[in-house]
Structure formats: C-alpha cells, structure tokens
C-alpha cells in the first residue's frame, strides 16, 4: 500500500465543506478556523495569566495595599501565571495557532492530513482549559505549589490548593497533552506527506521548519510530563509513594514512605527544558520569515538555520538537569549538563548571527512586524547571555531562586516569543483577515511593550545579584536587602501595569481593523512564500481554488539581480520569471527597482 501523491488524488479529497454557521465556525474542520479557535482560547487564557501577574506584582510593588492578596492567593497567582503562560498560552498559540494556520498554506496543501482529528484537538484543548479554570472555583482554589509542581510541597496541607487544585491541574495537563498529541501528529504528517509538487523539505520556509521540529519535541517531551502527572495523581488519590517520601505533616506522619521527589524533578525537567524550545523554535522560524520579508533579503544561511533548528531540538533533550543544580547531584553530572548547556548556545548564537546578517545591507522596511522582529533580536540576546551565566554550576548556585533567574527566563522565553507572536500576528493579519491594521497604533504598541518589558526585567537582574529571592510573598526586614530594592520593586510593578495596559492597543487595533481597517492587498509585504499567493484573501476553504500550486524555488527569492520585482513567488515557474532586459537594465533608472 504505497504513498499516493497528494496532487494525484486532489480530486478525491473530501473537503468537509460546512453547510451551516455552526459547521463553519464551531465544529469546523478547516485548519484556518481551527487555528483561530486555538489562538483565541490560548489568548483568552493568556489574558488570565497576565491579570494574575499584575495582581501579584501589586503585592510585590505595594505590599499589603490590596488586602485580598493574601499569601495563599499570591502563591496561587504565581503558580497559575507560570503554567498558563508556558503551556496554555505559548505552546498552544505557536503549535495550535500558527502551526494550524501556516503549515497547510506554506506546504501548498488544502488542509491538515486529518481534519477531524485536528478539530478534536482544539476541543480537547478547550476541555483542558476549562478543567484548569475550574480549579479557581473549587474549595481551596488552584494549586499554589509553584509552576514546577514539585512534590512533596505541592501535596502538603500548608500549600494552597493541595487538595482539589493540584488534582485539577494534573488532569488538565494530561488532557492538554492528549490535545497536543492529536494536533502534533497532524502537523508532522502534514509536513512530511502533504507538501505540494516541487516543495522539497529544503524549500520549506523556516516557519514550517521551526514548528515541525518543535512539534516533534512536543511529541517526545510531553510524555515525560504525562508520566509525572499520572504518578503524582496516584500519589495524591490512591496513596502510592512514587514521589512522596516519608514525611510529617503538622505533627502527623503521612502514609507515604520512600518516594523520590528528585525523580519527579527529572521527569518534569525532561519535559520542561525541551518545552523552552517547543516555544522558542517556532518563534525562531516565524521571526526568520518576518525579518527576511521586511529586509527584502533572503534569509542568511538558510541551510545553517535548518541545521541549527534540528541541532537545538536534539540537544534540548540532554540539558534538563541544569534546572536542578541545587537539588544535589554528582559534580560530574553537573559538569556534563553545564557542558551540554554551553554547547546548545552554539547553534542558538548561530541563528542570532544569521538574523543580524539578514538585516545587513538589507532594504529594510520598518513596518510594524519588523519592529517586533528586531526587538526580538535584542531581548533574545539579553535572555540568551544570562542563560550562559546560569548554565554554569558555580554561577548558578548563588543565583538560583533569585530574581536573576526570573529575569533570565522572562527575557528568553517570555518577552522574546511574545514579541514574535506580535510580529507574526501583524505580519499575517492582512492574509488572515483581509484587512490592514493601523500601523501607527501597532508601532506605539511595540514601543510600549519593548521599553516597558525592559523596565520590568532589566532591574530584576540587579535584584537577583543582591540576592533577593523569588517566590517570596513579602521580603520583610532583611539586612542584605536595602530599601532601594523595595523601590526597584515598586518601579517594576508600575512598569508591569503599564505594559499590561498597553496591550489594549493591540486588541483594540486588531478588533477595530477587522471591520474598519482598509482592505488588504493579497500580498501587502511582497512576500515570496506560498501562503501569500492563494487565489482568495483570506484564503477560502480548501485554500487553492481548482488546483494545487506547484513550487519551483525556495521561499526567499528577494531582490534577485535582474528580476523586475524585488521578490519572486515560490510558485513562479522559471520560464515565467519576470526579468529586466539585461541590455537595458540600469537599476538607477528602473523605477520599480528604485522604489524597492
């Protein structure tokens, strides 16, 4: 039973054309609608996560001003903020949102390979979010054990949400993993089997490469979280001792005996570190495409970029214990993980060089997406360099559990991917909606977000150097923490409130533009990749009208010498390549090139 080429059986493909409003927008099997559903649910959850962060920042900046923020609520807010942002916002948005929207379009396919399973994936994701949110309404509230959910602390009576909160969190994560696996199988198989005629793997845009490899990471890393969640659920509900050691709670010995909390940590971080790259790799891919399009240059070092994505993906599975240096480990073990951590910086740095070299002598168009993409390079370099500090055991030990760590991971996997999310949404918004957004408002949104997040996280590095511990509800009177640290905390909170409020610019812009924005050109940025060359904008169900596209080149033919336009679409045949008559070609006199 052999492979039958997609283009050969296009006529037999069942497209599940919707017949009603519900079929079109609710139980839709169209990857674009599912992408928007995934994205909307993720963004809604992210808004909850953002609101929680503003609340606990209130306590840190203005202690005891908001009386309802007691220690329990504080820890619950910190925990839920972390888990929501990492898993339910960023993972879901990059893979479920951008993955769903872009993979079939960039691969020249009509849809995902299994549309029904794709639809199921988004609804199971919604169920996971509902279970997560339900923990706010059960007795004891959501878990407050920190987003890493370390036992035994998470399961003990002193921790908020130790009864139902943690159970719902673990069930929600298990359900989320089911959704991610269903979606992930779709993304991987679509990229492998559903590319259109002529579209080799090495002609794929880097967005697809980033999402493809991140999906493979998700498929192999999330099982570790699933295993940890199942075993912890048994510890809580059935009274087993996989992770729970012999322990005395409020003077009473518990029934548990001999479990290994460090085993949980290994399982958690075997998922947790690849998770960083599950978020980062799609961001790397998307930002590469945005930079290339708006710099009117081919991405510098395409092959190296692909290799770097693959190398980072592979290496991400052998660095996990650098999150556990303080858990107590053999020095050689620490040495090994410090070494692999430094090695993974090599392909990562290579990507940064290539982004900068893509900009070098490019015909840079400072459109709103480009602002965010260039901003990402700054924040990612900062977050990446502090990662080199923390990857070394001797530097990590004193900095562990301080605000330096908080600043590091927020810069590298909070602010940086979120800037790419904004870059990508602004970049593909005209294709998704058929409308243009307000450019000025988008640029204002960039400056508020970019400068605002620096105002939040740059001072946090100094707090960390002072030794200010993370996760504390109140710092109290401590000799090594001067009053100036408290002043800095107040400043950070004001900046956080400002950044939080400035996100309204984004929401107002994209919602307002849906109705009132000027109609978008089908390819307003002059991009070469396939998704910009659909017959309809926004693309209709089935994407490609009567026949599937054929690809003749890679996705980065920008500013090709001798070409009349400053880009050549992937589906432009060689014979139809628009060229300027060489005898008369003079770039200074040629109007179209002079404009470009």
């Amino acid at each position: 039973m052999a492979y039958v080429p997609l283009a050969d059986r296009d006529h037999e493909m069942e497209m599940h054309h919707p017949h009603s409003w519900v079929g079109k927008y609710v139980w839709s099997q169209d990857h674009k609608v599912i992408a928007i559903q995934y994205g909307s649910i993720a963004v809604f959850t992210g808004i909850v996560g953002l609101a929680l962060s503003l609340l606990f920042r209130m306590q840190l900046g203005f202690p005891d001003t908001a009386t309802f923020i007691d220690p329990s609520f504080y820890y619950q807010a910190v925990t839920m903020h972390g888990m929501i942002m990492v898993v339910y916002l960023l993972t879901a948005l990059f893979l479920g949102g951008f993955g769903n929207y872009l993979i079939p379009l960039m691969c020249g396919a009509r849809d995902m390979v299994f549309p029904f399973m794709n639809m199921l994936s988004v609804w199971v994701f919604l169920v996971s979010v509902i279970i997560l949110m339900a923990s706010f309404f059960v007795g004891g509230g959501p878990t407050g054990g920190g987003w890493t959910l370390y036992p035994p602390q998470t399961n003990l009576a002193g921790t908020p949400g130790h009864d139902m909160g943690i159970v719902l969190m673990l069930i929600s994560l298990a359900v989320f993993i089911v959704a991610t696996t269903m979606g992930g199988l779709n993304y991987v198989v679509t990229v492998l089997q559903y590319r259109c005629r002529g579209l080799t793997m090495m002609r794929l845009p880097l967005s697809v490469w980033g999402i493809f490899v991140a999906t493979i990471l998700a498929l192999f890393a999330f099982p570790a979280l699933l295993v940890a969640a199942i075993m912890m659920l048994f510890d809580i509900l059935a009274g087993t001792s996989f992770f729970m050691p012999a322990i005395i709670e409020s003077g009473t010995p518990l029934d548990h005996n001999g479990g290994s909390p460090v085993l949980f940590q290994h399982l958690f971080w075997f998922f947790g570190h690849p998770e960083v790259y599950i978020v980062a790799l799609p961001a790397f891919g998307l930002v590469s495409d945005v930079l290339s399009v708006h710099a009117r240059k081919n991405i510098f070092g395409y092959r190296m970029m692909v290799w770097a994505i693959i190398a980072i993906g592979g290496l991400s599975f052998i660095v996990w214990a650098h999150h556990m240096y303080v858990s107590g480990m053999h020095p050689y073990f620490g040495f090994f993980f410090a070494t692999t951590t430094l090695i993974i910086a090599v392909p990562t740095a290579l990507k940064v060089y290539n982004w900068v070299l893509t900009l070098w002598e490019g015909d840079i168009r400072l459109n709103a997406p480009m602002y965010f993409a260039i901003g990402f390079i700054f924040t990612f370099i900062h977050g990446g360099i502090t990662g080199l500090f923390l990857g070394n055991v001797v530097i990590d030990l004193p900095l562990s559990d301080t605000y330096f760590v908080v600043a590091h991971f927020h810069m590298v996997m909070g602010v940086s991917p979120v800037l790419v999310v904004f870059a990508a949404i602004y970049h593909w918004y005209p294709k998704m909606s058929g409308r243009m957004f307000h450019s000025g408002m988008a640029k204002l949104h960039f400056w508020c977000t970019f400068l605002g997040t620096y105002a939040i996280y740059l001072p946090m590095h100094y707090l960390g150097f002072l030794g200010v511990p993370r996760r504390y509800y109140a710092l109290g009177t401590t000799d090594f923490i001067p009053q100036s640290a408290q002043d800095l905390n107040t400043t950070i909170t004001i900046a956080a409130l400002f950044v939080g409020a400035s996100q309204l610019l984004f929401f107002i812009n994209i919602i307002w533009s849906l109705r009132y924005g000027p109609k978008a050109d089908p390819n307003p940025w002059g991009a070469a990749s396939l998704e910009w060359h659909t017959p309809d904008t926004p693309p209709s169900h089935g994407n490609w009208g009567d026949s599937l596209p054929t690809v003749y080149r890679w996705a980065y033919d920008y500013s090709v010498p001798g070409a009349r336009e400053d880009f050549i679409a992937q589906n432009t045949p060689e014979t139809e390549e628009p060229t300027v008559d060489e005898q008369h070609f003079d770039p200074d006199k040629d109007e179209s090139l002079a404009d470009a």
Partner: protein
Amino acid sequence: MSLFKTITDKPWERKGIIGGLKPEGAFDAPSEKVALSVFLVVASVVFSLFTVGYFVRMELPDWQPLSEPAQLWFNTGLLIISSVLFQWARNIANSTNDKYLTAVFIGGGIFAVLFIAGQLVTWDSLQGAGFYMTSNPANAFYYLMTGLHAAHLLGGLWVWSKSSIRLLAGREASDVKLSIELCTLYWHFLLVVWLVLFAILSNT
C-alpha cells in the same frame, strides 16, 4: 532521498520542479500509517519513561520485589495468539482470497479481550493475596504499567471493533485493508511492549 542529502541541498541554486508529484522526503506509505508510526514512537517514550522511573524507584530501600503470578505466562500466550491472528488477517487482506478474513480478524480482537480479562484476574488474585497498590512501590508499578498497557489495548480494540462492524456488514476487504494493516502493526507493537514489561517485572 537520504536525510543527509536532504539537509545538504542548496535550495537557492536549484530551480524548477523537484521530485515530481511525490514531494521529496515523503514516506512511501499512507499518511495513516506514518501517523501511527509516529504515535508508536510517542507511546514508546511513555513506556520507556515509566520503565526508567521503575528502575530509579527500585534502588530506594523500601522496595520489595513482587512475585508476579504464573498466570502472566498464560496471558502472554493469549496476546501472542492475538498478534498472530492479526498478522494472518493482514496476510489474507493482502491476498486474493479473503475467505476467512472476518473470522480471523475478529478472533484476533477476542484474544486481546481475553488477555485484558486475564490481566484483571491477576490483579484480583494479587489483591486477594494482600498485594495492594499502596503496600509497596513495586506493587504500584505493577498495577500502573499493566493498566497502562491494557488501556492502550482498549484504544486498539475501539478501532478493531469499528473495522469488525464494517466487515460484518459485508464491506469489501479492500475497504478495511488499511485498517487491518494498522491494527496489526499496533498489536505487534503492544506485544513487544508487553514482552519487555513482562521481562522487567519478572526479573526485578
């Protein structure tokens, strides 16, 4: 096309249609089979991580090895028969004569159901002998790993039951050929997983 050749390609140099209708790098198999293969790798990761957890936990002092019931040998035989029947069904589906296809395919599933029933009997006998899940981590791992394996089989039985209904409704063998092939692959995988789990549980 080899992976090395793929990733050393210079896409900026090569123009025109490459690979014809079949995109380079695609597997010469139906998409469903590719998806199942990827899923089997994911499931392998899950079982492997449980096994790693088993060995790590085993090193701690409170571990008391469990004497696995002899009935597990009988259950293993049931699962082997189930897998053999699925392979037979696959061979019939690929041949021109599909006379016994329905009986063999349904028989394969029935033996899998018997295997699960047999596993439940071992659970019951262990409970009866006082080997509860909470008594010892070795017991807990036994229940957890055998339960997880049975849960995977139940997932397979759901697909098997759908295909069986189609066969009983008189559908052509060609209509369910792919489904039979995927069930066979899945059953072989679960047999291998079980043999590995059985070996680990019996020898530790």
